[in-house]
C-alpha cells in the first residue's frame, strides 16, 4: 500500500513489574500502520498483544512502563507528548474498544449519553448533532431499533449489541485509528459473526485504520489486511493476510495454524447401560421453565458434547445432573438406577461418581488452599486416604496432569498459569475416581495452544480410566475435536442429537446449521461468502 503512514512504532520496549523486579514484556517491536489499513495482532496470552495495543495510544498499564523505542502517531511523538496532548488525541483521533463491553460501559448512564461524551468534550460536535450522529451509527452497525436503543442502559441490551454500541462509540469522533482488543472473544459464535461483520463494514466505510488484537486466527483473517504474530514480546513474523494463511514461514506460526487439527479417533457405537441417562427432565428457576423435556444418555468411555448459545440450558442441565437444581419432572439415572433429585438426598458414593470441572479455574479453586489440599481433599473424603497414602496419591495425580509434584504440591492456585489451573481442576475431579466428569466450557477461557493441551490430556485420561464426559461448550471446533456424540440445545430444548459424524453432515435442523456455519474458517473470504449466502437465502 502506497498510502501515508499513520502510526509508526520502532524498537518498542515495555517492562512489567512483578514484585520488586522489572522484566521486559515487549522486546523491541516495530510496527507500521498506513491510513485505512487493518493490522491483526495475534499471539497467546502473555505475548504482549494488548500491551503493544495500548502503547499505540502512548499508554502503559499500571505496573508497566515504556522503556525504549519511539511511537509516532501522524508525526506526533507519543512518548514525548504531554499528558494533556495525549488526552486530546485519545477518544478523538485514537479510540479503543475493549474485550468486555459490559465491563467498559458505565452501568449508571444511558448508551447515548456515553456516546455523546467524547465528541462534546473534544468539541467536535454539539450535543444535538452527536445524538443524531449516534443514531446514524447505530443504524449502520445494524443495531435493532437504532432510534431508541441509545436511550437504554447497558444492562438492558445483549452482549453482542453492547459490543457493537461500543464500536459505534469508538467511531463517534471519526478517529484515524481504532484499537480493538479481543472484541469478539467473549461472544457466542452466532453473535460473533454479527459484530465482526459490523466492525469490518464500519472500518471500511470511514476508511479508519485499526489494530485488531485477538488470539483467534480465523477471526482475524476476516478483518485484517496484514497479520503480525507475536510470541513472548517478540515478533515472529508479519505478512499480508492471504500470504500468512497460505504460507506461514515460521514453525511457531505453523503450530498456531495446526492447533485445530487435533481430533479424537472415531469410536464404535456404545452399548450397554449408560453411565448417566437424563430422562425427560423439565426444570425451572422460579416459575420460568429453563429446560423442557431434555433426554440423552452418556456411556462409559464416551464424550457427549452439549452445544448451544448462552442461555440455551446447557449449564442448567449440568446443575440438574449434579443435583444442584432438582428437576420439576423427569429423572436422572445413574447406571440404570434413579439418582435422588436433590444434592442433600444423595449418598457420598453417588456424589463421588459425578465430578465437575468449571469454566473459570480462577473461581473454581479456593485461592487460599495449597494444591496438596485442593487435590487431596476428594481423595481423603471419598476414599479415606490419610498421611503418606494421601501424599502419594496427590503426587500421582499431579504426574497424571503433567505437573511436576515436587515443584507444585505446596503452591497456591495464584502461582499457576491459566492452563495449569485448569489442569488442577481436572486433577481434583480425577481424585474422586468418578465415572462421569462434567466439563463446563473448560477450554473457553484459554488460548488455543493451551486448549489443545487440555483437550489432549482429557482425551488421554478418558482412554486410561474409561471416563464418561459431558462436555458443555459453544465452540464447535472443540466439539469436532473431542466429541463422540453431540446434543444441540436451544432455549431449553434438545433440537438435535446423534453421533458426531452424523451431526456434522447435512441435513441439519436450521438452528444446527446456523451454529455450524457460524464457526469462522481460516479463509479471508469466508465471512463475505457467508454473509452473501445468508442474504441470498433470506
Amino acid at each position, binding site marked *: 500500500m502506497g498510502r501515508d503512514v499513520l502510526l509508526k512504532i520502532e524498537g518498542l520496549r515495555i517492562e512489567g513489574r512483578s514484585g520488586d523486579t522489572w522484566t521486559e514484556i515487549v522486546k523491541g517491536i516495530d510496527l507500521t500502520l498506513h491510513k485505512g489499513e487493518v493490522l491483526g495482532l495475534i499471539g497467546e496470552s502473555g505475548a504482549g498483544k494488548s500491551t503493544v495495543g495500548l502503547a499505540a495510544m502512548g499508554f502503559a498499564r*499500571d505496573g508497566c512502563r515504556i522503556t525504549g523505542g519511539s511511537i509516532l502517531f501522524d508525526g506526533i511523538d507519543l512518548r514525548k507528548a504531554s499528558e494533556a496532548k495525549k488526552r486530546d488525541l485519545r477518544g478523538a483521533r485514537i479510540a479503543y474498544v475493549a474485550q468486555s463491553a459490559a465491563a467498559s460501559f458505565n452501568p449508571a448512564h444511558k448508551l447515548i449519553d456515553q456516546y455523546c461524551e467524547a465528541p462534546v468534550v473534544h468539541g467536535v460536535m454539539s450535543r444535538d448533532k452527536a445524538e443524531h450522529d449516534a443514531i446514524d451509527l447505530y443504524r449502520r452497525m445494524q443495531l435493532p431499533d437504532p432510534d431508541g436503543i441509545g436511550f437504554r442502559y447497558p444492562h438492558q441490551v445483549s452482549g453482542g449489541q453492547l459490543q457493537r454500541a461500543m464500536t459505534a462509540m469508538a467511531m463517534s469522533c471519526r478517529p484515524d485509528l481504532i484499537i480493538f482488543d479481543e472484541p469478539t472473544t467473549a461472544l457466542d459464535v452466532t453473535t460473533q459473526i454479527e459484530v465482526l461483520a459490523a466492525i469490518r463494514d464500519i472500518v471500511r466505510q470511514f476508511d479508519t485504520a485499526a489494530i485488531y488484537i485477538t488470539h483467534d486466527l480465523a477471526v482475524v483473517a476476516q478483518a485484517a489486511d496484514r497479520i503480525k504474530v507475536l510470541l513472548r514480546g517478540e515478533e515472529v513474523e508479519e505478512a499480508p493476510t492471504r500470504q500468512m494463511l497460505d504460507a506461514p514461514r515460521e514453525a511457531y506460526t505453523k503450530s498456531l495454524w495446526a492447533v485445530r487439527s487435533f481430533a479424537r479417533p472415531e469410536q464404535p457405537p456404545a452399548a450397554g447401560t449408560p453411565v448417566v441417562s437424563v430422562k425427560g427432565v423439565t426444570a425451572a428457576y422460579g416459575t420460568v421453565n429453563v429446560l423442557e423435556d431434555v433426554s440423552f444418555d452418556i456411556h462409559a468411555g464416551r464424550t457427549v458434547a452439549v452445544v448451544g448459545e448462552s442461555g440455551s440450558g446447557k449449564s442448567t442441565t449440568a446443575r440438574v445432573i*449434579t443435583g*444442584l437444581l432438582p428437576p420439576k419432572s423427569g429423572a436422572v439415572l445413574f447406571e440404570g438406577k434413579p439418582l435422588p433429585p436433590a444434592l442433600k438426598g444423595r449418598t457420598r458414593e453417588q456424589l463421588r461418581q*459425578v465430578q*465437575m470441572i*468449571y469454566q*473459570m479455574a480462577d473461581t473454581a479453586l*479456593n485461592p*487460599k488452599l495449597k494444591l496438596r489440599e485442593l487435590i487431596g481433599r476428594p481423595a481423603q473424603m471419598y476414599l479415606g486416604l490419610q498421611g503418606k497414602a494421601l501424599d502419594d496419591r496427590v503426587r500421582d495425580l499431579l504426574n497424571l496432569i503433567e505437573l511436576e509434584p515436587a515443584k507444585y504440591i505446596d503452591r497456591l492456585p495464584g502461582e499457576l498459569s491459566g492452563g495449569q489451573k485448569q489442569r488442577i481442576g481436572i486433577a481434583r475431579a480425577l481424585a474422586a475416581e468418578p465415572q462421569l466428569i462434567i466439563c463446563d466450557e473448560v477450554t473457553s477461557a484459554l488460548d488455543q495452544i493451551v486448549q489443545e493441551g487440555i483437550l489432549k490430556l482429557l482425551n488421554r485420561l478418558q482412554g486410561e480410566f474409561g471416563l464418561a464426559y459431558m462436555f458443555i461448550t459453544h465452540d464447535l471446533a472443540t466439539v469436532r475435536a473431542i466429541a463422540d456424540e453431540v446434543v444441540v440445545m436451544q432455549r431449553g430444548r434438545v433440537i438435535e442429537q446423534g453421533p458426531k459424524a452424523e451431526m456434522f453432515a447435512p441435513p441439519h435442523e436450521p438452528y444446527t446449521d446456523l451454529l455450524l456455519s457460524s464457526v469462522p474458517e481460516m479463509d479471508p473470504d469466508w465471512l463475505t461468502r457467508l454473509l452473501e449466502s445468508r442474504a441470498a437465502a433470506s
Partner: protein
Amino acid sequence: MGFAASIILGLAGLFALAWVLRLAVRRALTGHARSIANDMPLTAAFGILVILIYAIVAIAAPALAPFPEREIVGGQFQPWSAEHLLGTDRIGRDMLSRLIYGARNTVGIAFVTTALAFVVGSVLGIWAALTGGWIDQALSRFVDALMAIPALIFSLLLLTIFGTSVVTLVLVIAAVDATRVFRLARAVAQGIVVMDYIEAAKLRGEGSWFLIRREILPNAMAPLVAEFGLRFCFVFLAISSLSFLGLGIQPPTADWGSMVKDNATLITFGDITPLLPAGCIALLTVAVNFVVDWQLYRASGLKEQ
C-alpha cells in the same frame, strides 16, 4: 529533662527497637514468611513491639511489679520517689504496680471479650450467608434489632440486670460486639459463597462446618483480622468507659479506666500521674491500629508503586 521530652525520647526508643526487631525477624525467617516481613512497614513493627511488651508485662505482672496489686503500702497521693516510682494513689497503693496489674486485667479482659465476639459473630455470620433462607433472615433481623440500641446504653442496661462481675462484663460486651462482627462476616461471606469453589465443595458433599472453616474463613480472613484490631480498641475503650462509670471492672482490681477516675483530682494540682493509665490505653490503641493498617494494606492487594 521535661516530661514531654522523655515521652518523645521513649517513643523514639521504641521505634529504634522496632527497627532492630524487624531486621532480626527478616534475618530469621525464610520463604513466604520472609517476604511478608520484608513488606512490613516500620509502623507495623512498632505496633507489634508495643503489643509484645504489653503482653509480656501482663503475663509477668507479679514478677515485675514492686508491690502487690491491692495492698496499701504508703500514704495517700505520694509524689514520685525512689521507693514509689510513680507515687501512690488516693488510698496509698503503689501506682506503678497497679499500672502493671492493670495491663493484665484491662488488656486480658479486652482480648478475651474480642476473641469471644469474633468466634461467635463470624461463625454465625458466615453460617447465615452460607445457609440463607429463614435462618439468615431470623439471625440478621435479630442482629438488626440489637444494633438499633446504642451500644453503651445497652451494655449498661444488661450489666444492671445481670450484675457486675468480670464474667458478665465479658459476656455482655462480647454479645454487643458480636452483632457488628456478624454483619461484617455475613457481608464478606456473601461475596464468597457464590464462587465456584464453594459450589464444588457442596457438590463434593462437604458439611457446613468444613465449608465455613476451610473454604470460606481463609478467604474472609483479611477483613476479619483488620476488624479484629479495630474491635479490640473499641472493646478496650468500652471497658474503660464502663469502669469509669463504675460498672466495669470492680475495685480493688486494678484497671486503667477506673484508675483515671479515682485519681482525677490530682490533675487539678498539675500532676500528670492520673494520665499515665490513659496514656497506656492510647499507646496500645495506636499500636493495634498500626498493625491493622498493615493488614488492611496487605488484604487490599495494593503495592507500592
